[in-house]
């Protein structure tokens, strides 16, 4: 059980496993987003799948921190961490371009996101005096996940993670603003929707997988604007769209099944407290 304001959350899957999934899956996806197999059609799909891994990690981090009750609602930390993550991701690719080492961009982006998240976490804890033990760690984790997720989807649209590609294909057309809101929703919505008594980590993560794949489906639509990636007449955007949609339907179905299973049995019912008048 994990209600907002209810204290630490119980977990079937340890945070470290999801952290590893997010970091390794996210980085691997981004690094494979410019490989030239089958005319580059597979690469953007791998970039998007990396972002999906990062979103699952971020959604679990939100679950851990928001179960203490932030006082400001679950979405607020999502928006803030996405803002931090986007600045971190841009710092990463920009620094890599300055150093002429494009290959280190995603790692630097992750590190910059983690550092920014930790700084704001420390400010919130030391200056604002928030009393949440996991605040610094979780803000850093969500910001790092946000950096990877935004870079993953951006590299899927741009066909790579170099600064020039990101600036010309993602920032100039304004897709970065869409990713800001979409990825925020994908990361904060699962716990925001599932929180309360009988909240369960596996079910929340099933919803996170479904929101992540829904963003991937939309990324497929956005990738129409970069028609250069085609193999044997099949454009890359179509592959992202179809795989994203399949993932979305499968994960949403599994989430709805899990919700139905949980709802079919009421194992404990609270008494309504008696109020003396």
């Amino acid at each position, binding site marked *: 059980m994990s209600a907002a304001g209810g204290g630490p959350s119980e977990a079937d899957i340890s945070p470290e496993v999801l952290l590893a999934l997010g970091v390794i899956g996210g980085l691997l996806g981004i690094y494979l987003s410019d490989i030239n197999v089958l005319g580059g059609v597979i690469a953007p799909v791998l970039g998007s799948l990396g972002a999906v891994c990062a979103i699952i990690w971020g959604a679990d981090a939100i679950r851990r921190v928001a179960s203490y009750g*932030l006082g400001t*609602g679950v979405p607020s930390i999502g928006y803030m961490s996405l803002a931090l993550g986007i*600045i971190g991701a841009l710092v990463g690719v920009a620094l890599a371009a300055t150093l002429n080492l494009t290959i280190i961009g995603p790692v630097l982006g992750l590190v*910059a996101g983690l550092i920014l998240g930790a*700084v704001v976490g420390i400010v919130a804890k030391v200056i604002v005096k928030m009393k949440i033990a996991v605040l610094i760690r979780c803000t850093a984790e969500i910001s790092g996940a946000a950096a990877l997720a935004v870079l993953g989807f951006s590299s899927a649209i741009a066909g790579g993670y170099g600064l020039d*590609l990101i600036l010309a294909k993602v920032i100039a057309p304004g897709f970065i*603003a869409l990713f800001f809101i979409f990825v925020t929703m994908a990361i904060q919505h699962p716990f925001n929707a599932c929180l309360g008594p009988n909240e369960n980590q596996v079910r929340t993560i099933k919803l996170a997988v479904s929101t992540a794949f829904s963003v991937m489906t939309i990324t497929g639509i956005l990738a129409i604007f970069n028609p250069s990636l085609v193999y044997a007449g099949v454009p890359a955007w179509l592959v992202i769209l179809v795989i994203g949609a399949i993932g979305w339907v499968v994960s949403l179905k599994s989430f709805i099944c899990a919700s139905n299973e949980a709802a079919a049995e009421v194992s404990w019912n609270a008494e309504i407290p008696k109020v003396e008048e």
Partner: protein
Amino acid sequence: MVITAILTLIIAVAIGGILIGGGVHFIPVGGAPAAMATATGVGTGTAMLAAGGGLTGLITAASMTGQPVYIVCIAGAVGGMLMIALTMLIANIIYVYGCGIVPSSAKVEKDIITGLDQEKYITPGTEGHGVPTGCFVSGVIGGLFGGVGGGLVYWAAYNALAEAITTPILGVESNVVIAGLAAILGVAVFFINAVIASYNIGGTTEGVHDPKFKRLPRGVLASGVASIVLGIFIYLIVGGAL
């Protein structure tokens, strides 16, 4: 970049962040209780109000791109104030004609602007409801500060980037890239400071007359420290975009 340009960028981001963080303390954020009309303020969280007011302010500020800094800031302020005023007005219409309540505050005995008695209009068991005049004026002042802050961050980021990016990137005109990058950086700084301020007020406030307003110095300090770090990171982006 010369050292004065770097300092201008970092200081402008810091001042902008402080104005945004400070401005949020003025805005009547009601949160979930206000959504049920059982507390004073607009019935949503800071992040949503910041998204509305802040983004409108950034659009109006960006429409003045290339003008002197004070014009950009005034344009941002007009956008922010208009949007927050409209949000509060529409909220009040819904509260008054939809819920059938009188806008009133439980935190003060008399409204700080009109001087009207508040207590007899408050439904028993609630902490006030709607957006009374004092909260409304306070919210508009918050929109002013937030808009000026957002405009300042946009102006600083745009000018720094305009020095760094001078040639088209992969066939895209440099000014399009600069405007897009400056806008997303402005939005990011806006959200970060709005949420830090929201943490400081514990989610909900009524504005200047709320006892939580005394926490303003702490919120300003927090926004200032965070924004200086953000300014340094934004400089890294600008330096890398050369």
